[in-house]
């Protein structure tokens, strides 16, 4: 089955997510769709799978124009999508998730799960997926959940599979397995669309590549004709240097130290297991690891958002294991949270209010029980200017700023305090290249001024580019450590460690 | 001339208490060609406000209905000495010059009802429950229990009454004058414990008990009505009422309005009793055949005894 997108345009109010996109998808072929964050990849595919209706343009299936009035139509037409954020019901079993929407029933609308279970087994066998049809999805690791998503699509006998950033949540080893599955699907005659912004992956798996920028297709070609720098330039719109400029490494004394730190998740499982690490001032420590290995819990316990069950956290020679979030802020720990837009700021609050969200109590901004709003507004206006945040006024609701400016607001707030240690979770997730450069510059500046910096990121490239020291976390422990200043670090070794090979 | 009335929370259409009192105003409206108005109290907090809005509204007499309005009426009467008030079920001690209290020796009629019920009951167990534990309610229960005692003493029987302990003054109370559902549940409870005649002293709540009796059949459960003759005010369920203990608030209210109209109004107390017809036992209507002739004769004798003072309904 071949699909042709012609002149697709999609607007959300004033935002144009896709403009005049032409694309063809053919059976027995993997089409790689490359583009940076916010380029419009997901939107385009959501149009294709019927979730959005295009503002303009048409979709041809085997040369026949098709209109989708909802995802059901697209599914019936043989188009299935594995979404960037999984669309699985956690409390359902694999089989229930798979049949949802295309259930077979007996009398009185009775669900026939037995037949479905047999079909899941068959799909398992055909593509080597190994998924237990009766497992509850919430108990499955992400890698398996992804396979459930694929089974879902295959169960609907889709001929076209759209995979939106499927590798973002996988370890390098899981990626290899995953590519095997893709190849098996391709060889079975399916048409595949593989979305990513990772250059190596696309070069490895795609049969054909299209690059999308600002909602438009800006380049197409075959992998053998394209190089990494070329692709990067197409994607970003200008030559990209993959280098980072830092001052020579001159670490100071130990700033942060954990001793046998153990932390439980809300479910009583162990998230961090007797973990020991140190961060010195003037160094950037990067923590690599696949999501779900305790990185978020580590950040939470270091910033005081979660209690340690056992062990100690020392900061600047002081035991802060039981110290509150507020007190840690006062001691000089700054935190740029992973999920900045939802936990870093309050969308209905003004820019000024957000600017003092964790400093309003400080003598600069308050008089006794009262907040000195005049002072807050004045200082905020200064920060807005210094950090180049684009807003008409400090009274603008933060939610009305663009995504990038919201991020800058959080960074401005955290960096404008007196800090000794900067903890940043996924510091560049969801950012465009300009903002990424900006944030990287700021992080390095902090290190060069003598602050300790702890970065947790699932982007291995980012960790490798910034860190002085790289720690790999697996199942709540540090399983490997690399000194980046001692010479080049072997990326595949890190990958293996992330998958637990060193443990 | 305008007569105004403030009801208690049961509502003007309760088929018993408030409705009987309002009937007095309606009768006066018909007989003397006057205006009548009423204001329903939704909650106890409305009493004072309601009385005040009637004071605003040029009423020649304001009749408040119910013991619970006693304090609010007193307050209003003190503040407005020129306004005439009358209150049902409350007597002030000492009397207030511009308030005429209407009280009833309900226990006299309830005594008869107790004697009757004790004689008619087959299970020899009777049930009674009240709305709120206040004198105008418990006076029914007192009279009823003493009537049963009288029967037991006379006949050497041992009929028992569930739901009211005359000495500890504790018993079954719904704590409201509104919930019909409570009326059904309380009657069911008493029926489960063997009672075959139930006396609900809670205004409209009793209609719920009547619904149960209707469903079970009068051979299993009979109801004794209060305030009005429920045979007439609750015509759909009329057959379940063995009798009613009537409290002729309609008559006293009409009478009070009349005194106010011809300027013979005086503060004080107006007492309704068996003697003056202010309270009485209604006829047996449909259940007449359930009451032996002998019992009817005995009731007549007791009635005369009470009026003559030879039978004491109060110790």
């Amino acid at each position, binding site marked *: 089955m071949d699909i042709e997108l012609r002149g697709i345009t999609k607007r959300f109010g004033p935002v144009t997510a896709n403009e005049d996109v032409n694309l063809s998808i053919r059976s027995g072929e993997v089409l790689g769709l490359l583009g940076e964050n916010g380029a419009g990849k997901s939107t385009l595919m959501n149009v294709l799978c019927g979730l959005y209706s295009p503002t303009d343009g048409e979709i041809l299936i085997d040369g026949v124009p098709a209109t989708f009035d909802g995802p059901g139509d697209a599914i019936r037409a043989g188009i299935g999508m594995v979404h960037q954020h999984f669309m699985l019901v956690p409390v359902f079993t694999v089989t229930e998730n798979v049949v949802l929407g295309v259930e077979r029933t007996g009398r009185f609308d009775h669900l026939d799960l037995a037949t479905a279970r047999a079909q899941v087994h068959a799909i398992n066998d055909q593509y080597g997926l190994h998924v237990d049809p009766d497992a509850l999805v919430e108990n499955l690791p992400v890698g398996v959940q992804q396979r459930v998503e694929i089974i879902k699509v295959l169960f609907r006998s889709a001929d076209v599979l759209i995979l939106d950033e499927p590798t973002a949540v996988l370890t390098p080893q899981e990626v290899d397995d995953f590519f095997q599955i893709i190849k098996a699907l391709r060889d079975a005659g399916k048409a595949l669309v593989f979305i990513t912004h990772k250059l190596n992956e696309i070069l490895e798996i795609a049969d054909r590549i299209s690059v999308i920028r600002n909602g438009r297709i800006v380049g197409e070609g075959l992998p053998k004709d394209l190089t990494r720098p070329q692709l990067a330039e197409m994607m970003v719109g200008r030559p990209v240097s993959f280098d980072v400029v830092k001052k020579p490494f001159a670490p100071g004394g130990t700033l942060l130290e954990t001793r046998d730190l153990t932390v439980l998740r809300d479910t009583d499982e162990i998230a961090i297991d007797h973990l020991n690490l140190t961060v010195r001032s003037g160094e950037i420590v990067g923590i690599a690891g696949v999501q779900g290995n305790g990185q978020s819990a580590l950040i939470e316990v270091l910033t005081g958002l979660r209690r340690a069950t056992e062990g100690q956290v020392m900061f600047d020679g002081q035991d802060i294991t039981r110290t509150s979030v507020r007190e840690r802020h006062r001691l000089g720990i700054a935190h740029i*949270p992973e999920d900045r837009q939802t*936990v870093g700021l309050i969308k209905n*609050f003004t820019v000024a209010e957000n600017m003092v969200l964790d400093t309003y109590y400080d003598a600069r901004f308050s008089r006794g029980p*009262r907040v000195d709003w005049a002072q807050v507004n004045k200082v905020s206006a200064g920060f807005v*200017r210094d950090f180049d945040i684009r807003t008409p006024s400090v*009274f603008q609701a933060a939610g009305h700023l663009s995504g990038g400016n919201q991020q800058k607001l959080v960074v401005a707030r955290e960096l404008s305090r007196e800090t000794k240690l900067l903890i940043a979770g996924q510091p560049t997730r969801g950012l465009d290249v300009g903002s990424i450069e900006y944030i990287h510059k700021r992080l390095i500046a902090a290190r060069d001024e003598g602050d300790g910096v702890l970065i947790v990121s699932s982007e291995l490239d980012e960790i490798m580019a910034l860190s002085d020291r790289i720690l790999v976390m697996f199942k709540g422990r540090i399983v490997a450590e690399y000194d980046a200043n001692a010479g080049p670090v072997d990326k595949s070794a890190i990958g293996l460690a992330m998958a637990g090979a060193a443990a | 001339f305008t007569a105004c009335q403030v009801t208690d929370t049961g509502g003007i259409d309760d088929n018993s208490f408030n409705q009987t009192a309002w009937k007095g105003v309606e009768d006066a409206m018909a007989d003397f060609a006057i205006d009548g108005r009423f204001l329903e109290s939704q909650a106890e907090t*409305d009493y*004072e406000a*309601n009385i005040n*809005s009637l004071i605003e509204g040029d009423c020649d007499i304001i009749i408040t209905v119910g013991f619970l309005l006693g304090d609010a009426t007193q307050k209003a009467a003190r503040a407005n000495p020129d306004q005439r008030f009358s209150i049902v079920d409350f007597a002030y001690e000492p009397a207030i010059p511009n308030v005429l209290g209407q009280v009833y020796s309900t226990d006299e009629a309830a005594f008869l009802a107790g004697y009757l019920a004790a004689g008619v009951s087959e299970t020899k167990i009777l049930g009674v429950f009240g709305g709120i534990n206040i004198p105008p309610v418990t006076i029914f229960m007192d009279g009823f229990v003493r009537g049963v005692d009288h029967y037991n003493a006379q006949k050497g029987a041992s009929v028992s009454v569930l739901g009211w302990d005359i000495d500890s003054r504790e018993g079954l109370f719904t704590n409201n004058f509104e919930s019909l559902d409570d009326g059904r549940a309380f009657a069911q409870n008493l029926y489960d414990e063997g009672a075959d005649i139930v006396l609900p002293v809670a205004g409209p709540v009793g209609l719920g008990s009547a619904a149960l009796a209707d469903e079970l059949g009068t051979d299993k459960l009979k109801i004794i009505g209060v305030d009005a003759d429920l045979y007439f005010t609750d015509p759909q369920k009329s057959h379940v009422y063995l009798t009613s203990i009537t409290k002729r608030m309609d008559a006293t209210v009409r009478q009070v309005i009349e005194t106010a109209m011809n300027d013979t109004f005086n503060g004080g107390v107006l007492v309704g009793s068996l003697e003056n017809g202010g309270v009485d036992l209604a006829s047996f209507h449909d259940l007449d055949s359930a009451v032996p002739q002998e019992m009817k004769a005995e009731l007549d004798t007791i009635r005369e005894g009470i009026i003559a003072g030879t039978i004491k309904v109060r110790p």
Partner: protein
Amino acid sequence: MTDTSMNDLMKAKMIGRSEIEDLIIVPLFAIVAALILGALTMLATNVDLATIGLSYVALLKGSVGSLSAISETLTAAAPLILAGLGLALGFRAGLFNIGAEGQVLMGGMAAVITGFTFTDLPAAILMPMSLLAGALVGALYASIAGWLRVATGAHEVISTIMLNLIAYRLLDYMLRLPFIQKEGRADPISKSVPDAAELPRLLAFIDPNLRVHAGIFLVLVAVAVVYWLLFRSKLGFEFRASGENPQAARYAGMRSGLIIVLAMASAGALAGLAGANQVLGVLGRATPGFSAGIGFDAIAVALLGRSHPIGVLFAGLLFGALEAGGRQMQVDAGVSIDLIGIIQALIIVFIAAPLLVRAVFPWGFRKGSRQTEGGQ
């Protein structure tokens, strides 16, 4: 950037057309629509046009048409505003507290007990002390739900509903305790508070039937304090932050648990004051139904006032006026006061669903939502 651009950044936003629509036109339309629908309801129940007219005239007359009408309006509004302020405070802090009714009951009981226990104290001490007792006990009762939420995650909607039901039973129980029950009565009713504990009636010198009492000063003070607390104080900033986005508040180092308990306690204190206001200013003692649904009506008042102290003030006055006017309506036109309940509910429907008002009265608004939303 220059200094002038700094000043631009700090220039407060002008009130735009869309704010005016939200703050004035929507509520106005809501009231008009509710009155029209109320009239239709009357028509549907066989009330003739003349009586409908008469009843709306009576509504106006009974709410603002005379000194005594205004007095009644203020008397009815005071507890609604007090409890409404408490609820608004809770809503701002992200707590949907249905428990004002129970807090009113507990606060009122505390005020009564304090009042009749310390009869020897002079008014200058006894009255504030009784009010304080009401506020304190209301706060304590409310903080149970707050604490449960913090310690166990129990949702406050359910726990406050349960606490209301518990409060009713507790009240019935307490009113029969020999030490509380009025002498010589067997029904649940408390002793009366002495004059020294009562909130004095303000206009009794003109006419003893004018019930408006010193509680309205309490209301004004409460409005000002809540305004200051919410929008000027550090604590209020924390309330609002954790109400808007509890996660972000926690990340910013605010102690969410403490904030929830404090917010619940403040809400309970205000509801407790509403109870104290009733027993000390209006009733003089406690009876089983003395709360008369204030706690539930106050939910509506807080929603109508959009959880803003000034909004709550006006919403409470509106509800008070409707209540006072409704009584007049029943006296003059014979239309049941229950109509007021319908009108109140309809007003809130229209206010809480602006999309609906726009659908019903499209001509009241600028065309197209794009302009209003993408304005700045």
